[in-house]
Structures are given as structure tokens and as C-alpha cells.
């Protein structure tokens, strides 16, 4: 109940002493009104914002959606709406789709890294009893790929195979044994070609590049994409106060989702393809299927099954999906293909193995005057998302800190390995790790506290990064303060004995892609949601958002329930079929909560308005006096004067039958004009800070992460239970990459651990005790203020652990994962160098504050006040990266400093000195070589 509204004292009856009936005790039509409670629940004022008269604190200020909060579900710990299907075994994943008369499909894979397919003889396989259909690349010559600019995949090899495990042919048979036998009977004649396994070799000219891009091919190398970006004035970097330079090596990692890929294809009696697949991005699969199969998109129905974990690994359109469709078309029967775990590793799309060199500079006031990144990433056999990854490795490092200058050279090369692609924290994870460790190192050199160094260099809310990203809400400062407090940092950092350490790391990630792929700004919004309500009062929400376990279905249901003030059980989300759901770009780049929930709110507001209009007419009360609460609409001045939700619904349905609304979301115009400005552009960004505590066994080199304090700014936690689950789960995945997970390629380039026994995903025993801390910065454009929580929380755990290891043993290791052999080798090397006989005598780093520390403290306390004002929009002056360095935010920096550059191509005098990935710029495209044009 509202604080202002006092019930008559002593009244337990439903009638007040003045004869009016008491709100909340009114009977209204129970039959069909939905919900299991016959009575209206009281408004839950704990979940109504204080500026709307409720009790929910709003330290970050008001939000435009506040007035639609009804205290129904937003902000409450809400079990996933599909959780019961999952705990009863009813959830149907890819391999659980069993259609009558089904065939089993099996894929023939390449045993060679790189080979030309000279001929394929399928006659023996076709002759085997029980084999119904056989297909090869000749059946599907059209190329596809997740990005329209880099379509380089075929359903099956057309000309070449590009890695061990690449698809060559496929068969469909009556059972698995026959299918496997038939696959083994297919004879392929290969001409083996020279293969490339090292990303560095991918930069060199070769006779037979893995792909050929005609006039756009860079030399005759295997460079798929190269990026150059330079922003700011780099003339003063030579005489910096402190600097860091580190060469990093990151191994490739796999998503390790528990459900192997599976697909069922069925051409129905009308000749339409029904394709069941656990896809994160069903719409892209839909497009690619239409291209490859040469059928119009409306003749394909992509049915997303439950997805047994995605993490980016189920977001490409996959060749096996094409294979199943081709086989099913040939056979005239449904075909099911399910992967072995080994095949999951062949299809991969995991995080890129990376060689990253990072240089950072700080001036004598502890400002970050320069950030130089050079990232060479190993793309494997196909482009996948690599075009974007090449940018993300640089541009997502431009916040949360204010930079004096930024310089990035990136290159992605094809190698004869399973393709790398998008994985949780896409493109941002590895450079973030190097960057945060670099900051820790500079803090050490300047003898200041690394948290204070960060706090004194943060971009404020409502500002712009050096490359022009628009930062809106920003909870970085609170995140750092909360983990510092929670971990008791000041008592522990640089004060613990040898073998025990504590470290800090931060993260920054996009909340949705501002200019997504396959998006036509003139024709499509980013997300569309349809809501329909029939006479029974049940609300059906149609969305294409793919729930991959992150809870997007729950989030969409929640926001609709919140706006309409209906119990969650009245809201049914239908999101599986492309036939019934509007086009949605899928679950990638952490876009779903932000974009889909916004679209859902927009549709729900439409419905709300219609309900209020109807209620207003019945009650003869202007709709601005009406309140929606739990299946009832009433006058806020006299709650007894009201009608039920069903009455209002039926009134508004009088003319048209079902109440239907559509809502959409598109991002506001934003971003710079330079080439690549769209990469990393997002309507909002998430921020996170973690402190990790580790124990290192100095005699064994074994690292145990014991505790993590994990603060993540998700804007507003629509469902704290799910946000905490995402934070802890991100910790788990990041911890795997930093401590144990790696795809190991042997001397001959063969993947040695394509299974879950040797690919070391942390078990329950490796998990630290994680304290999730939710920071709510209330994003002005997010749904009820929400931003992403699925990917950003992964980023900080890597550097936090690496920094904690340094705190524990005084050694920095620039190669992940930190397996015991590597750690011990580093310890042994240091012992030899410093002539230490016993590992237990290793020195540990200590901190003796320099004069700079005071300056940083002062600056960060000033900035803290600035940030509060900006966050609450009490200070709306423009702020761009560079203000910390004395620039006027109202004038472009290049007009204030003659040395300020914005450049996306290296000058000719720069080309020779560009680092490893930068050396890609020494090569010339074919069209400029007089070659193909």
C-alpha cells in the first residue's frame, strides 16, 4: 500500500466506516481472470521506485519507465519460467526431437588439414542396404557465412577442405550403425596441400592461401582482416612517467556447452522445410538455409529447440544444418544429425588463439597517456564472426579509462584449424586481460594502489570514449568501491605472505550491437515483439529472442507482466518458431535483455493504453487517474472505484476481438564516421570489477582461486537471481580460461584434446566462493534501466587472477592458461635468476606509497562527486575522452591539438614499425598489385 493511503483503523472487513469498500479486499470476477489467487494482491511498494511513491531506493536517479513499474515482478528474484520443463526432463533439446520415420544422418569429415578434393566416390555407400540418401558439396554450391561481408563456408567441401574435421559429404540411413558404416564407405581422393598452423605464418605469402578473395585478397597471405586505428596525440609518449610493455599469448578456448550440436530437418507435406536446431541466432540460420537450399525464406520454418548452452558457440549458421536439410530433401524423410563431442570441437567457433602485445604509458599525474594494442588472432579455417572480432580486440579496450591516445593494429589470419568465432566476451577478453595486468604493473612501478589508479582515471557517466562510443550509465566507480570494501582489499593487498595474493581486474562490454549484421536500418528495427490477448485474459508474447539458458524468455515475460500488472503465470512467451515469431537478430552481443525487453515494453505499453482507455470509459475517470495493479484497474484517489482487468480487456476487445499490439526497438543514431566506427557501438555498456584471492603452491606451481568478489553494473537487475547466476557462471568460464582450459594442437597441427576429459572445464572443486555484487546504474535507455549481464562479467576474472598471482609470488606470467607447469617454470626461472635455493624464500611484492598516491586519491574523490552529478543528470554538460587531459569537450580535440590524429590507415612512414599484427599492413591488396581486378 502507498504510504499516503491509510486504511481505516480497526477495519478488518471489506467495508470502511464511511461505507466505501476497501481496496485490495474487493472481489472481482475470478473465473478466467487468470492467476491462482482470487484476490488482488496489494501493490508491492518495496518494488516501486521512490520517486513514484514507493520504497525502492533510486540512488542513480529516475528512469522514464519508472511510471510503468507496478511492483509485480521486476527486481524480484524470479525462477526461470521454463525451469520446470528443465527439472522434469521435458525440455526438448536438439537431439530430443524425434519425428516419425526419421533417418539418422552422419557427416564424413576431412582427415587432412588442407587438401584439394579431387573426387568423391559415393557408390559403395549408396549401395549399402539401409542407406537412403548421400550428399556431397556438389549438391550445395552456394556460399554462406554469418557475416554478409565474409561468406566463405559451404555446406560441404566444394573445392578444398580447410581443417581436420571439415565437412566433405554426408549420408542418411535407417539407423546409426548403417549411417556410420556408409560414411566410412565414401572414398575421397585428396591432393594434400601445405597447411598453416601458426598465426604468425598466416601473415606470410604462400602458394595456396586457405581462401582466395580475388582482388581484395591481401598479397597471397592468409590474412582475413586487418585493422588500424589511431586516435589522439602520441608525440609525448617517449618521456612517460611509467610504462608497461607485455607480449601475451592466449590459447584458444571452446565454449564447452554441455549439449552437443544436433539438428532435425523435415520437409513437410507442403514442401516447406521445418528445421529444428538449438540455435542462438535462428534468424541467421534461416537466411543461410534459404541461400544454400535456394528456397525462399518463407518456405523455411526454423524451430529453435531448447538450447543446452550457447555462449556464442551456437550462433553461426552451421554446415550440418544445411546437410540435414539437403539429406531430408533427397530422402523425403526427416533426418536427425547429432554430434559426438569430438565433432563439437571440429566445428568450434571458440575464442581466438591470440598473440597480443600491449604497451601503456602513464604521465606524472598517473593519467594513462597512451594505449597501444597489437593483436594477431588465429581465425582457423573460416571467417565466422572474425571480421568483428578483429575490431573488438582493440576498440573494446577504450573504456572505462580515459586515454591520452589509442593505437590499435589487429589482424586475423586463416589457419588450418577449426574456425574460431564468437565466445562469451567476444573479442574483448584477451586484450582486457593484458590491459588490466598492464595497469597493475604501472601501479606497481608508480607505487600507488591499483584500485586508486583506476578510480582516478575513469570516464564519467554520459561521456564519449576516444573512438566515439557513447557511454550512458556507468557504474564502474561503485563497482570498484564495492569490491574493495567487500574483499577487505586495503588490509590484504601487498600485505599477505608468500603464496597468498589478491588482485583486481575490470571489464567493459557492449550491451547489444548498435549496428548489427544483417540489419537494414531503413527496414528493420533491432527487435520486434508481438503481444496478443484473447478473451480468457492470457497474454501470449511472440518474440524471436532465443533463450539459451540466460533467461531471456523470463525477462520478456517479466517486463510484460510488470507493465500490465499481471501475475507472471498469465504471460506465455512463444519464441521457438520463425513462423510465429517476428524477426529477431538472436542472442548475441548481449543484446536480448536490452533490445527485446525494450520492444516488449513498447508493445505492452500499447496494450496498457488500450486497457486504460477502456477502463476510463467504463469508470468515467480520466486514464491518468487510473492505476493498474494485479488484474485490476482502479482510481488512485479511491481504490474502491475500479474494474477488473478482464472487464477492461473485454471492453477493449469489443470491436476487434483479440487485443493485439506490436512493439519494436531500434538504437538511436550514434557513433563516429571513421571506417570501423560501428564496431563496438552499443546503446549502452556494462561495467564490472572483480577482486580475486588466490593461493599458489610455490613448490608445485598449482593455483587455487579461493574467493572472488564480483561487482557488475547491469543497469537494473530485472531478475537478481538470474543476474547473479550470470555473474557466477561468467566467473566459472573465465576461470577455466585463466587456469586450465586450452585447445592443444600438437606438432603436426592436430587438435589433441577434442573431448571433455582433456579439455579441462573447472569442476565444482575448482570453483572459488563467488560473492556476486549487483550494481544498478539505471541506464536511461535500458528496459527499466537494465543493461547486459551475460558477457561482461566474464572479462575481469582473468586479469584479477593473474594480478593476484603476482601479489602472491611476485611473478607475472603472460601466457594463459596458468597451468602448474608454466607457473612452476616461471618460479624456477626466477629462482635461478635471483639465486634463490628454496621456492619458499621467494620475495613477495610490497607497496610503499609514492607521493602520487595522494594526488590520485584527491582526483578520484573529485571525480566521484562529478560522477554522481552526471549520473543523476544534474550535470548535463558534454564530456568527451580528453577532458582529463585539459581538452574542452565542446570543441573537437583535433582542433585543440595539432598533434591529435584520427586515422584508420597507417601512413606510409608508419608501416614498417607496426608490430606483429601491424605487419599485415606491409602487404598490398591484389587490386593494387596489378593482379586480379
Amino acid at each position, binding site marked *: 500500500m502507498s504510504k499516503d493511503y491509510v486504511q481505516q483503523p480497526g477495519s478488518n472487513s471489506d467495508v470502511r466506516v464511511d461505507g466505501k469498500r476497501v481496496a485490495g479486499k474487493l472481489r472481482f470476477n475470478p473465473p478466467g481472470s487468470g492467476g*491462482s489467487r482470487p484476490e488482488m494482491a496489494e501493490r*508491492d511498494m518495496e518494488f516501486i521506485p521512490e520517486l513514484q511513491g514507493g520504497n525502492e531506493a533510486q540512488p542513480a536517479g529516475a528512469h522514464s519507465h519508472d511510471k510503468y513499474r507496478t511492483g509485480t515482478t521486476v527486481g524480484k*528474484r*524470479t*525462477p*526461470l*519460467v*521454463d*525451469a*520446470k*520443463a*528443465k*527439472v*522434469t*526432463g*521435458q*525440455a*526438448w533439446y536438439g*537431439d530430443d526431437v524425434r519425428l516419425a520415420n526419421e533417418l539418422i544422418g552422419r557427416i564424413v*569429415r576431412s*582427415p587432412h588439414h588442407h587438401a584439394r578434393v579431387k573426387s568423391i566416390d559415393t557408390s559403395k555407400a549408396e549401395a*549399402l542396404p539401409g542407406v537412403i540418401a548421400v550428399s556431397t558439396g556438389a549438391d550445395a554450391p552456394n556460399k554462406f557465412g554469418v557475416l554478409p561481408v565474409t561468406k566463405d563456408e559451404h555446406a560441404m567441401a566444394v573445392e578444398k577442405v580447410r581443417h*581436420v574435421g571439415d565437412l566433405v559429404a554426408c549420408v542418411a540411413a535407417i539407423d*546409426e*550403425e*548403417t549411417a*556410420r558404416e556408409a560414411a*566410412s564407405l565414401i572414398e575421397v581422393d585428396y591432393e594434400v596441400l601445405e597447411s598453416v598452423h601458426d598465426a604468425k605464418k598466416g601473415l606470410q605469402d604462400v602458394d595456396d592461401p586457405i581462401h582466395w578473395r580475388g582482388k581484395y585478397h591481401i598479397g597471397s597471405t592468409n590474412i582475413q582482416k586487418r585493422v588500424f586505428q589511431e586516435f589522439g596525440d602520441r608525440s609525448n609518449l617517449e618521456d612517460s612517467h611509467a610504462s608497461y610493455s607485455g607480449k601475451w599469448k592466449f590459447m584458444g578456448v571452446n*565454449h564447452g556447452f*554441455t*549439449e*552437443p550440436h544436433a539438428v532435425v530437418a523435415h520437409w513437410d507435406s507442403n514442401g516447406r522445410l521445418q528445421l529444428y536446431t538449438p540455435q542462438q541466432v535462428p534468424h541467421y540460420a534461416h537466411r543461410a538455409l534459404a541461400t544454400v537450399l535456394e528456397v525462399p525464406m518463407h518456405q523455411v520454418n526454423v524451430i529453435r529447440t*531448447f*538450447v*543446452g*548452452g*550457447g*555462449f556464442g558457440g551456437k550462433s553461426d549458421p552451421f554446415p550440418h544444418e544445411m546437410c540435414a536439410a539437403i539429406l531430408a530433401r533427397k530422402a523425403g524423410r526427416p533426418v536427425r544429425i547429432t554430434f*559426438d*563431442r*569430438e565433432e563439437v570441437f571440429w566445428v568450434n567457433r571458440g575464442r581466438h588463439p591470440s598473440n597480443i602485445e600491449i604497451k601503456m604509458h602513464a604521465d606524472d599525474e598517473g593519467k594513462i597517456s597512451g594505449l597501444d594494442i597489437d593483436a594477431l588472432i588465429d581465425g582457423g579455417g573460416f571467417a565466422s564472426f572474425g571480421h568483428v572480432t578483429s575490431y573488438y580486440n582493440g576498440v573494446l579496450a577504450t573504456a572505462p579509462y580515459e586515454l591520452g591516445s589509442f593505437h590499435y593494429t589487429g589482424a586475423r589470419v586463416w589457419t588450418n584449424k577449426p574456425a574460431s568465432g564468437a565466445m562469451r566476451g567476444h573479442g574483448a577478453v584477451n586484450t582486457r586481460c593484458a590491459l588490466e595486468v598492464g595497469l597493475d604493473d604501472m601501479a606497481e612501478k608508480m607505487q600507488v594502489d591499483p584500485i586508486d589508479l583506476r578510480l582516478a582515471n575513469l570516464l564519467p557517466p554520459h561521456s564519449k570514449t576516444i573512438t566515439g562510443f557513447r557511454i550512458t550509465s556507468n557504474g564502474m566507480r561503485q563497482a570498484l568501491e564495492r569490491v574493495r570494501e567487500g574483499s577487505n582489499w586495503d588490509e590484504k593487498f601487498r600485505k599477505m605472505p608468500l603464496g597468498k595474493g589478491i588482485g583486481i581486474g575490470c571489464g567493459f562490454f557492449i550491451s547489444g550491437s548498435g549496428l548489427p549484421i544483417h540489419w537494414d536500418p531503413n527496414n528493420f528495427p533491432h527487435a520486434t515483439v508481438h503481444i496478443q490477448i484473447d478473451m480468457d485474459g492470457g497474454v501470449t508474447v511472440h518474440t524471436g529472442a532465443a533463450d539459451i*539458458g540466460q533467461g531471456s524468455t523470463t525477462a520478456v515475460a517479466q517486463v510484460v507482466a510488470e507493465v500490465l500488472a499481471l*501475475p507472471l*503465470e498469465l504471460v*506465455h512467451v512463444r*519464441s521457438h518458431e520463425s513462423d510465429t515469431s517476428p524477426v529477431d537478430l538472436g542472442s548475441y552481443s548481449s543484446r536480448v535483455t536490452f533490445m527485446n525487453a525494450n520492444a516488449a515494453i513498447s508493445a505492452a505499453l500499447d496494450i496498457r493504453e488500450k486497457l486504460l482507455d477502456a477502463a476510463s470509459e467504463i469508470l468515467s475517470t480520466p486514464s491518468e487517474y487510473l492505476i493498474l495493479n494485479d488484474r485490476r484497474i482502479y482510481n488512485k484517489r479511491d481504490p474502491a472505484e475500479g474494474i477488473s482487468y478482464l472487464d477492461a480487456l473485454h471492453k477493449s476487445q469489443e470491436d476487434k476481438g483479440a487485443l493485439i499490439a506490436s512493439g519494436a526497438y531500434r538504437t538511436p543514431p550514434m557513433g563516429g564516421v571513421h571506417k570501423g566506427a560501428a564496431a563496438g557501438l552499443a546503446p549502452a555498456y556494462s561495467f564490472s570489477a572483480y577482486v580475486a584471492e588466490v593461493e599458489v603452491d610455490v613448490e608445485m606451481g598449482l593455483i587455487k582461486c579461493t574467493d572472488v568478489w564480483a561487482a557488475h553494473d547491469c543497469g537494473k537487475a530485472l531478475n537478481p*537471481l538470474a543476474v*547473479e*547466476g550470470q555473474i*557466477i*557462471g*561468467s*566467473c*566459472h568460464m573465465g576461470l577455466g580460461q585463466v587456469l586450465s582450459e586450452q585447445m592443444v594442437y600438437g606438432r603436426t597441427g592436430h587438435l589433441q584434446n577434442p*573431448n*571433455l576429459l582433456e579439455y579441462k*572445464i573447472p*569442476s*565444482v*572443486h575448482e570453483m572459488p566462493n563467488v560473492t556476486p555484487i549487483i550494481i544498478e546504474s539505471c541506464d536511461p535507455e535500458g528496459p527499466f534501466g537494465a543493461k547486459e549481464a551475460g558477457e561482461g562479467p566474464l572479462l575481469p576474472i582473468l586479469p584479477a587472477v593473474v594480478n593476484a598471482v603476482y601479489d602472491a609470488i611476485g611473478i607475472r606470467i603472460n601466457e594463459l592458461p596458468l597451468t602448474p607447469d608454466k607457473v612452476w617454470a616461471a618460479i624456477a626461472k626466477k629462482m635461478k635468476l635471483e639465486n634463490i635455493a628454496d621456492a619458499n624464500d621467494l620475495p613477495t611484492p610490497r607497496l610503499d606509497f609514492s607521493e602520487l598516491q595522494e594526488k590520485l586519491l584527491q582526483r578520484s574523490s573529485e571525480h566521484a562527486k562529478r560522477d554522481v552529478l552526471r549520473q543523476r543528470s544534474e550535470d548535463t554538460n558534454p564530456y568527451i575522452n580528453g577532458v582529463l587531459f585539459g581538452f574542452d569537450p565542446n570543441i573537437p580535440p583535433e582542433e585543440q591539438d595539432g598533434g591529435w590524429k584520427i586515422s584508420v590507415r597507417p601512413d606510409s612512414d608508419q608501416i614498417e614499425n607496426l608490430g606483429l599484427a601491424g605487419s599485415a599492413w606491409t602487404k598490398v591488396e591484389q587490386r593494387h598489385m596489378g593482379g586480379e581486378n
Partner: protein
Amino acid sequence: MVGEEHVSMIPAAPSKVWSAEVNGQPQEVLSPSNAILLDVLRDKVGCLGVKRGCDMGTCGCCAVLVDGEPRLSCLTMAQDANGCSITTVEGLADGAHLAPIQQCFADHGGSQCGFCTPGFLITSQALLDKNPNPSDEQVACAIEGNLCRCTGYQQIIESIQAAAAINRGESDLAAPSSDAHPDPHPSGPD
């Protein structure tokens, strides 16, 4: 698989009658004599809640109770379970009423994508059957053979402890959500 020597799958092993009590119901099916329990349960009996994750006993998704003991059905020959009493995830609920362990996994975030959930439910049910009051360490040891890629295990341990408390009668089955759901029928797949 790739690059390995070819072993002919044909002719398949001769079929044998396999009979067992699955989730309280007697089952009798024909299956190849070399079939693994996982395949028989999924393909012949129709227990699709039993999940295949890794094929080699590393992920725990395929766990079932064989005579009350948790077993990895991908490493168990079907014939070795002949005549046994088998419980899969489909057999945990009492009719339409969820078992406490199921309700708690749903309510405490123990299940995200849900693929590993059946295995975790089976393993933790076996633990709670033997040890109604396990420590967190004992819970961790019980689920050490199950991989979960979503939750980071923490909310799984909370779910198991919550279920243990309900089993001991220390707390009610009420969901922590504001929206208690007295309808006992588990929602079907949508």
C-alpha cells in the same frame, strides 16, 4: 573418429531382450547386446530426459539411478542393468508434484540452460537419499562428476542444500518467488 582406423559397425550385434523397471514401470525392449544403457533409455524406452553430453563419462549429464545408485548410463552396458530398477529424471517427481530437489533447482537458479540438470538432479537425489544433512563439501564431492557450464555450481549447491532442508522438514517447499504457484502441474514445453 577422424583419422582413426575403421571398425565395421555392420552387421550390428544381435538383439537381445532387455527388461528392467524404469521409473516404476516394467519395460521390455529389444536392443543390441552391446548397447549402452543411455541409448536404450533414450531410443527404446523414450526417456529423453537422460542427456548425452560427452560420450565418455566426463560430463555426468547421462546419470541415472540403477537400484538407487547413481550411474553414468553412457558407461553402463544396458545388459548390466538388466532386471534392475532404474530411475531417470522423469521418475523423480511424484506424479505431477515436483520432488523437493526439482523444485529447489528451479527456484534457486540451479538450472540455467538445463541440459546438465537431469544429471545433477539424479546425483544430488542419490546424495540426499543417503545423507540427509550433507555439508557443502560433501555436496561438492557428490557432484564432482557433473559438469555445468552455466551456473558455476554455486546456485546448484544452494539448491541442493535447500532441498535437504525441506527433506529434513526444516523449511517449506514454498518458492522464494512472490508468485507461489499452487498449481502442481509442471509446465510443459512451449
